[in-house]
């Protein structure tokens, strides 16, 4: 347990990606099975300890300290594991010899009714950093700045194999991955993935820069719309059907509507989208209703019907076609999609263009708002895992921006808790400001200090952690806000919700009277 706690602590404090990989490599070398594999599972989110819930942990912490004091501390710290590990009375016994394997075993055998006593006893016996580790472990979602992909990258480096090999195998493996480690250490042959319908690592694009555009030869490329959904892979093999996210997570259970229609022998690469009542592609916010769910209700499936806009085929029947050039893969994809229910599968149709200027015009004037830009793919490109250079490009639309006025500021959490770092901003409706969104990033630490000072100097009113800031026609702070799209919203007074708003510039120079008006945003909606 101590080694795992130290690993988490080190990872939290490490920024550099390479250094994080080094820490993981050291952990793999120094720890044995099953502990190191369980550590991986904790990071990749493959460890399931269903009887230990955050609510239970909060309850125990309230009991051993004080409910009110705990609430205040949690609000201040912002991280459950950190708060509980520190507020928990320090252990007397100090029986900290339990291995990670023993702790996982203990917690996985806990039932709903025995979990409170088991967890309480465990937390009593550990020190603060181990308490932190146990709580992170139990609640999943470590949020320590290490993605599942980074863990897989570390495994790949540990065994000096390609990460693609790990990703392809991953779905057939279960914690603590002893067979995987045996292979990576050269003690055993590569595990044979017995799982049907495995994931295949996806091919990614580069953002097209000026140089790419200058040398762009239209005759060598195919272009299609870039839809604002999520990248998925739909795989069917011998009656097994799986829907994967772009990182190989199995999300089948959240999309029974898609899986039901997935009568395929093969692997389709495409964009997962949701339709609105009128049948057109709904904005990302609608798709979001269906994401990050373990299961889904019939009502959600009905209200947010999902479908796949297919753009590539990796496997056709029993044949791996990744080495075929793009047009041939597309042809096979067309034939396959033609056999599927159109409501659930359709094609990403190539755009017709002859010059870069024609392409530019398309990009600036997409037919539907859910389009993020263009994808340009070399006609001779074979399907290669990872982000190969010069084959696929994304050319996104410029972000939309508006000038808004700072209205309210709220104190941040964690390391920004001393600063007013969360900003609500508004635009003019008549001669009053209406809030249209909230942003808490897009500025440097220096700028944060300056805004924080502005907030403190110009506070009109305080409501708990929120300050209302002076904002009238002649005096206030104008923020240039960039965002990726607008949705209608009944929850906001303005009737508008921004997608992914962030502060793009501070306009200290601009008088608030010159900030944008609500009508401008409404026009962008249409």
């Amino acid at each position, binding site marked *: 347990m101590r080694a795992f706690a130290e690993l988490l602590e080190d990872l939290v404090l490490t920024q550099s990606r390479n250094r994080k990989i080094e820490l993981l490599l050291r952990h793999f070398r120094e720890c044995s099975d099953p502990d190191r594999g369980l550590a991986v599972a904790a990071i990749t989110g493959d460890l399931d300890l269903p009887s230990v819930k955050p609510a239970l942990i909060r309850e125990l912490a309230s009991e051993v300290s004080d409910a*009110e004091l705990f609430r205040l501390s949690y609000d201040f710290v912002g991280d459950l594991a950190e708060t509980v590990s520190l507020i928990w009375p320090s252990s007397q016994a100090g029986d900290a010899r339990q291995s990670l394997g023993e702790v996982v075993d203990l917690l996985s055998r806990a039932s709903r009714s025995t979990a409170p006593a088991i967890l309480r006893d465990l937390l009593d016996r550990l020190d603060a950093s181990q308490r932190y580790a146990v709580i992170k472990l139990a609640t999943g979602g470590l949020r320590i700045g290490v993605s599942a992909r980074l863990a897989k990258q570390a495994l790949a480096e540990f065994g000096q194999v390609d990460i693609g090999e790990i990703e392809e195998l991953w779905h057939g493996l279960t914690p603590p991955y002893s067979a995987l480690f045996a292979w990576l250490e050269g003690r055993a042959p590569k595990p044979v993935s017995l799982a049907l319908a495995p994931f295949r690592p996806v091919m990614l694009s580069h953002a097209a820069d000026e140089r790419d555009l200058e040398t762009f030869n239209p005759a060598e490329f195919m272009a299609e719309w870039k839809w604002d959904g999520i990248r998925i892979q739909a795989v069917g093999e011998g009656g097994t059907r799986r829907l994967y996210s772009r990182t190989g997570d199995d999300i089948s259970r959240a999309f029974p509507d898609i899986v039901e229609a997935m009568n395929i022998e093969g692997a389709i690469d495409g964009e997962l989208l949701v339709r609105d009542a009128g049948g057109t592609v709904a904005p990302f916010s609608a798709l979001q209703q269906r994401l990050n769910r373990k299961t889904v209700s019939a009502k959600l499936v009905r209200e947010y019907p999902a479908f796949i806009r297919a753009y590539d085929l990796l496997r056709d029947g029993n044949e791996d076609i990744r080495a075929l050039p793009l047009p041939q893969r597309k042809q096979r994809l067309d034939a396959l999609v033609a056999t599927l229910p159109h409501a659930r599968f359709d094609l990403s149709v190539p755009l017709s263009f002859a010059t870069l200027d024609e392409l530019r015009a398309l990009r600036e004037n997409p037919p539907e708002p859910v389009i993020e830009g263009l994808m340009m793919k070399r006609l001779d490109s074979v399907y290669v895992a990872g982000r190969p250079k010069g084959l696929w490009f994304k050319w996104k639309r410029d972000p939309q921006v508006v000038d808004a006025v700072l209205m309210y500021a709220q104190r941040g959490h964690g390391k920004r808790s001393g600063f007013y770092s969360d900003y609500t901003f508004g635009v003019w409706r008549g001669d009053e400001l209406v809030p249209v969104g909230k942003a808490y990033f897009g500025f440097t630490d220096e700028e944060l200090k300056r805004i924080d000072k502005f907030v*403190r*100097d110009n506070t009109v009113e305080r409501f708990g952690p929120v300050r209302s800031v002076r904002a009238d026609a002649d005096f206030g702070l104008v923020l240039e806000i960039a965002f990726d799209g607008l949705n209608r919203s009944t929850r906001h007074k303005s009737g508008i919700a921004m997608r992914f708003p962030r502060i793009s510039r501070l306009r200290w120079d601009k008088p608030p009277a010159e900030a944008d008006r609500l009508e401008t945003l409404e026009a962008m909606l249409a």
Partner: protein
Amino acid sequence: MELPLVISDHCDWEELTLSIRDTGAGEIWVTHGREEALVRWCELNQIRARPLHLIGYEDEAE
């Protein structure tokens, strides 16, 4: 005679609460920070306490 006792705020929670205990103070006035939490701790330990809400205190920093 009343004497003010000045205590630096640069210490951890445990040290802060220990200092309050050590002084044997009958009443604690909290000048700044997350006042509610310390006031709550005092309450739990039967020590009278209140936040001062000093105007401009936080704005003086830096």
